[in-house]
């Protein structure tokens, strides 16, 4: 009788998985690190790991659709003569003209305006289309200072000093030559077709003491009218928030590691920065320790997708959220109806992230006039407005269920955590317990 030698099936390494192997081969073949758009794709603890408790005998809910649940928020109440009043606590994050097409920027402005919220410029300056179509426009003040000028500063509704971004805390920007059209080149005072590196540090200040003086200058130029935000990437949220307050910010924008980017090294996106969930409580703590919670508003971004995410960020102490990626998806980014074209680019709808290459079939992350013309700013703006309304309704639904007549009244006590990690990061009890890791007395 022949002995049949039993054998085990081929086994792939968990450490050297297919994706890792492919990346090693790609690096070896090209000699260039992988640059891409969008945010971290790895799974990290997120708002999904939190749940609302809803009402019970000790708390009664509000009647859905009958009892009012206020969604408004005012940003910039600390020093600005003209704070920004928003109807909803969901803003559109800064995304540059250059990274995005003109029609996409216009659509963002239109959608935000219908929904009663603000939109934000980006690295590359302010365009007339965007100013014209955005009732409330936040003007970013970035290290590159591309397109920066006092006229646009004065026609902005708020100024956002960008220190960092969640996708790349400590990193500068880049816009590769393929996307430098004549207009983009002119706005940035650079030759056409060359790669544009945006510095990672501001050219004329370093550290919080300088920043305080820089903010004084911006306020003096704009007659102390505009709210001044400081945007930081989620790295050291407690200290960054405290230092932003010290430097005189009206608002702190805190962007966690899932936050999108137009073009950054993949290694940076995936390995630098903290998850959004882990950033909110330390920032709120800093505000509370300084007696500035609600006086200096906190805007949280990085992976906000739904009204539930909005409600959770607010419950943890944020005053508002900002969205980037989700807004682009609402405009039509990565839409399955373009699958055939994504396939031609070697990708698939939902995974397309080569936003830096300027070949976006959806016409959003491109400067190619033919592709950009695919975005109908009116229709896309309408879709964004619909989406913002749905998110708001969802957040209201949750707030009412928790017994709140204002979204701003949501609180950590409304939440429990599904995992130990989320409990530790959000400092809310693990579901079914009254405990979270690090809580005193345990």
């Amino acid at each position, binding site marked *: 009788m022949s002995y049949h030698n039993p054998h085990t099936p081929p086994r792939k390494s968990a450490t050297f998985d297919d994706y890792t192997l492919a990346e090693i081969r790609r690096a070896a073949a090209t000699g260039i690190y992988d640059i891409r758009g969008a945010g971290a794709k790895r799974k990290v603890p997120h708002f999904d790991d939190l749940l609302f408790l809803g009402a019970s005998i000790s708390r009664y809910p509000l009647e859905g659709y009958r009892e009012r649940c206020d969604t408004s928020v005012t940003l910039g109440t600390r020093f600005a003569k003209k704070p920004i009043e928003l109807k909803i606590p969901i803003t559109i994050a800064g995304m540059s003209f250059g990274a995005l097409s003109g029609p996409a920027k216009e659509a963002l402005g239109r959608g935000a305006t219908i929904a009663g919220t603000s939109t934000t410029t980006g690295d590359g300056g302010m365009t007339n289309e965007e100013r014209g179509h955005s009732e409330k426009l936040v003007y970013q003040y970035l290290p590159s*200072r591309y397109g*920066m000028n006092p006229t646009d500063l004065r026609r902005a509704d708020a100024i956002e000093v960008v220190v960092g971004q969640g996708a790349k805390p400590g990193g500068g920007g880049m816009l590769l030559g393929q996307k430098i059209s004549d207009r983009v080149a002119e706005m940035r005072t*650079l*030759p056409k077709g060359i790669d544009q590196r945006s510095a990672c540090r501001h050219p*004329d200040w370093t550290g919080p003491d300088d920043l305080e*003086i820089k903010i004084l200058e911006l306020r*003096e130029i704009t007659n102390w009218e505009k709210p001044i935000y400081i945007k930081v990437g989620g790295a050291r949220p407690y200290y960054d928030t405290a230092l932003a307050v010290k430097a005189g910010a009206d608002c702190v924008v805190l962007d966690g590691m899932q936050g999108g980017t137009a073009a950054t090294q993949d290694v940076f996106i995936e390995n630098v920065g903290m998850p959004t969930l882990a950033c909110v409580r330390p920032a709120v703590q800093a505000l509370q320790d300084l007696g500035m919670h609600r006086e200096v508003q906190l805007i949280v971004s990085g992976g906000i997708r739904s009204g539930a995410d909005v409600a959770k960020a607010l419950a943890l102490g944020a005053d508002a959220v900002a969205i980037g990626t989700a807004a682009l998806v609402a405009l039509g980014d990565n839409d399955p109806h373009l699958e055939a074209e994504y396939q031609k680019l070697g990708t698939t709808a939902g995974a397309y992230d080569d936003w830096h290459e300027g070949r976006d079939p959806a016409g959003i992350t491109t400067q190619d006039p033919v592709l950009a013309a695919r975005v109908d700013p009116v229709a896309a703006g309408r879709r964004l407005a619909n989406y913002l309304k749905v998110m708001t309704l969802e957040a209201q639904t949750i707030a009412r269920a928790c017994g709140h007549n204002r979204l701003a009244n949501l609180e950590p006590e409304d939440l429990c955590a599904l995992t130990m990690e989320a409990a530790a990061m959000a400092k809310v009890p693990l579901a079914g317990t009254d405990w979270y890791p690090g809580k005193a007395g345990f």
Partner: protein
Amino acid sequence: MPVFDLAKTPLREFNAALHSVGNGDNDTAFEVLNPRGSHALAVGIDQPLSVDVRGSVGYYCAGMNDGGAVTVHGSAGPGVAENMMTGTVTIEGDASQYAGATGRGGLLVIKGNAASRCGISMKGIDIVVHGNIGHMSAFMAQSGHLVVLGDAGEALGDSLYEAKLFVRGEVKSLGADCVEKEMRPEHIEVLAGLLEKAGADAKPEEFKRYGSARTLYNFNIDNADAY
């Protein structure tokens, strides 16, 4: 001529007075006494005014100047004339770091020396320094002219784009992608004009020109050491 004594008047009042000058107003010559190192002095000017500051100023003096003629009869702190659009800013003494940073136009004249990062990220401004400049000057400079009658510190013009640099004295070292270039007649002509406007007693022929080698304009892995 309106005179503001900053020992008695708050900064806000002075800057607001500058901003309230309208097109065609008569009182356009301002004088500032006792600036005492104030920050953000005479920022955001948007009319063809003149401001004479009798003493030294702190950070960001004449920031975002658009049309003003500001003279500091003293020295200036960091970021003088940052992001200037048009106009003239003259510093009779020395200037600290980042002088003329990101400036888009106009003329910045520094009669003394300028510290590090002079003309950083400049985008069209002309800067003339009668003395020396510090390290990392004209870092990522995009456009405009930087003229130095004295010496330049280390890493001049690192990651330079299209700005043109003229130095009469010694350059301690050039930054990545910055090279010495031929002085052609058109450069001599531009330089002569700038020297004249800046009241500088020097001959264009005594200068060397530096500019971008343009090898870092599009990413190439073989240049990785230079980034």
